[in-house]
């Protein structure tokens, strides 16, 4: 085996894995927070993520069509599209909760799950239809910014682009802000109270419905931000883009301990790194017998192993409170 090559690309692989992992972590937050308060797996979350990515690309293409994209400062544009993506996705999540989950709150656990899957299909095809009518294409590409594509080089094999750095920085910032909100503020205490025990929280004067809406707003906003960052990082999106990252992020949430915010982050990073390692190294280590196409099988086998030994997830037992 070519050890020299293995070590030469190691930093790059770690970097790729971290970028992917933070993206998963951001999406996983949406799953984890909703699960924390409602014990519902919001399968429409992958589409909330996808809608965020489309909001970003539509704004960029709109600005470009009017010729105002280039004069604007790229960081300003990025901030604008991330905020817009967060806003739209957050509101969408609230609307979904209002329409598809709240009327079913008393129903058996599986019923809202099915309506979640329904919403997910609905959103995929709604976006496909509107984009087909509006642009006559539903594979859309983020316009690229020279500044973000610039690469910082460290030696022959290791470099990363400014935009990967931005993804990592933005994710870290949001994760810490969220952790602060949930553990250190009054609002966060209300969220935790609702998660712990809804009737009691309600007796303590907490407006449970408002808190649940708020949870969806925050989770959706994180998903929207992840969507925009995903588009900026990987360029091409389509209405079905959300499905795979959504499933992976859900896995990350379970791996970290569902309902647990730092857990989502750890789970996302572990999964992202595993995937990057598998995709880059499998064929090197097996002499080409197994290639990158087995990355998911490899990553998920390890996940199953971890869950056998830690069924509540990596951080599931350490932190008692649920978000």
């Amino acid at each position: 085996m070519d050890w020299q090559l293995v070590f030469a690309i190691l930093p790059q692989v770690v970097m790729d894995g971290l970028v992917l992992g933070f993206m998963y972590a951001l999406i996983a937050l949406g799953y984890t927070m909703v699960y924390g308060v409602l014990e519902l797996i919001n399968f429409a979350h992958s589409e909330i993520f996808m809608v965020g990515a489309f909001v970003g690309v539509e704004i960029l293409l709109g600005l470009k069509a009017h010729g105002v994209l280039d004069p604007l400062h790229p960081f300003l544009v990025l901030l604008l599209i991330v905020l817009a993506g967060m806003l739209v996705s957050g509101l969408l999540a609230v609307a979904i909760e209002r329409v598809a989950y709240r009327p079913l709150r008393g129903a058996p656990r599986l019923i809202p799950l099915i309506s979640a899957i329904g919403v997910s299909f609905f959103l995929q095809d709604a976006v496909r239809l509107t984009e087909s009518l509006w642009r006559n294409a539903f594979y859309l590409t983020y316009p690229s910014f020279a500044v973000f594509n610039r690469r910082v080089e460290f030696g022959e094999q290791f470099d990363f682009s400014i935009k990967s750095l931005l993804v990592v920085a933005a994710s870290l910032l949001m994760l810490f802000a969220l952790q602060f909100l949930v553990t250190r503020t009054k609002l966060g205490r209300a969220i935790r109270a609702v998660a712990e025990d809804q009737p009691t929280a309600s007796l303590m004067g907490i407006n449970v419905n408002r808190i649940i809406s708020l949870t969806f707003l925050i989770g959706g906003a994180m998903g929207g931000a992840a969507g925009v960052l995903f588009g900026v990082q990987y360029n091409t999106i389509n209405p079905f883009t959300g499905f795979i990252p959504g499933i992976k992020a859900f896995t990350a949430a379970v791996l970290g301990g569902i309902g647990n915010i730092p857990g989502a982050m750890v789970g996302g990073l572990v999964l992202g790194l595993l995937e990057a390692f598998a995709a880059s190294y499998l064929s090197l280590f097996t002499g080409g017998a197994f290639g990158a196409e087995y990355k998911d099988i490899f990553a998920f086998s390890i996940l199953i192993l971890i869950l056998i030994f830690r069924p509540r997830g990596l951080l599931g037992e350490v932190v008692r409170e649920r978000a």
Partner: protein
Amino acid sequence: MRWTLTPVLAVLAALVLVVPLTAEAQGKGTIKVATQSPLSGELAALGEGIKLGTQLAVEKFKGPVEKAGFKVELVPFDDQAKPDVGVANAKNIIADKDILVVIGHLNSGVAIPSSEVYKEVSLVMISPANTNPLITDRGLPNVNRVCGRDDVQGAVAAQFAKDNLKAKSVYIVHNKNQYGQGIAEFFQDTAKKQGMQVLGFEGTEERANFDPILTPVKAKNPDVIFFGGEYPQAAPMFRQAREKGVKSKFLGPDGLDSTELLKLGGDAVVGMHFTTVAGGVREYPKAKEFADDYKKKFGKDPEPFAAQAYDATAIGLKGLEAAIKEAGGKAPTREAVAKAVRKVKHSGITGSVDFDDKGDPKKATYLIYEVAKEWKDNKLVKRLEIAAPAAKKQ
């Protein structure tokens, strides 16, 4: 009670017998030509082209069959580029006794299982676009194609990498489907035979994040990266490769032949090459009239494979004509039509087609293009006429 039913049954039986007889009396009935291609979904533009090319050909060449007393009708089916939908349509098609010719499909992965259904009733299928060797290598008497094959196309691409791109090393990525992986393997075979170093052979269904695949590619720095698959994956991969600072030249098969490649890939794909079995209509001097008619009638330029569908249909109608003659002017059996089609020699707008004993054209055209800043300016770099290889024993 029992005896009262008998007259009712008799009347019913009489009706059943009389209805076809009356239809027969007004001419000899209808012969339908079916198309199967994706009319919805991401490949709809290409599938629509196949349908419209067929429509144009039916209008142009139905004369002799109509003169023999049959009405000719076109029935388009949407296979959605999905094998299960193609097979379900195929079952409906074989149930309609008037359908004697099928023009289709776009995707080899759909054509192969669907043609197994046509085979049950010996219904002839003429493919304008399927390049997988298995289409004809199964030796079905009812399956033909007018285009080239992936084993040749892959070899042409590898030869091109060596001779024109001066490649000493290649890295191969494919999309894991029958078409993409197939052509990637053929590319690899020839590359190895030609003494090029194959630095990697990877499959992926990824559509967005190619980072982990590209990291080893960059480290190994191949002269050429070959992508076996279609443009929705190829474009973002090539784009991300350039962004990552990969300097290799890019190469791909006919699955990349779409303006979308340029839209999604941007500057990264300008200057890359792709091979194809169906050039733009301007490569075929005889197709000028077809292109003009097409534009006049449908208001747009023909997509790749529309001209091939036109030729395939012309061949189908010629076969029909011969089979009707052989049947003494009566409606021919499906089997007779399939036999007659295999014998047709046709000088069409995309070249002359003369099927060999397994349904491949004896000579097929392979072209190599260089992508320009505007898709319509793509430059034809090489054009080859190559015979189909003989069937391998399976």
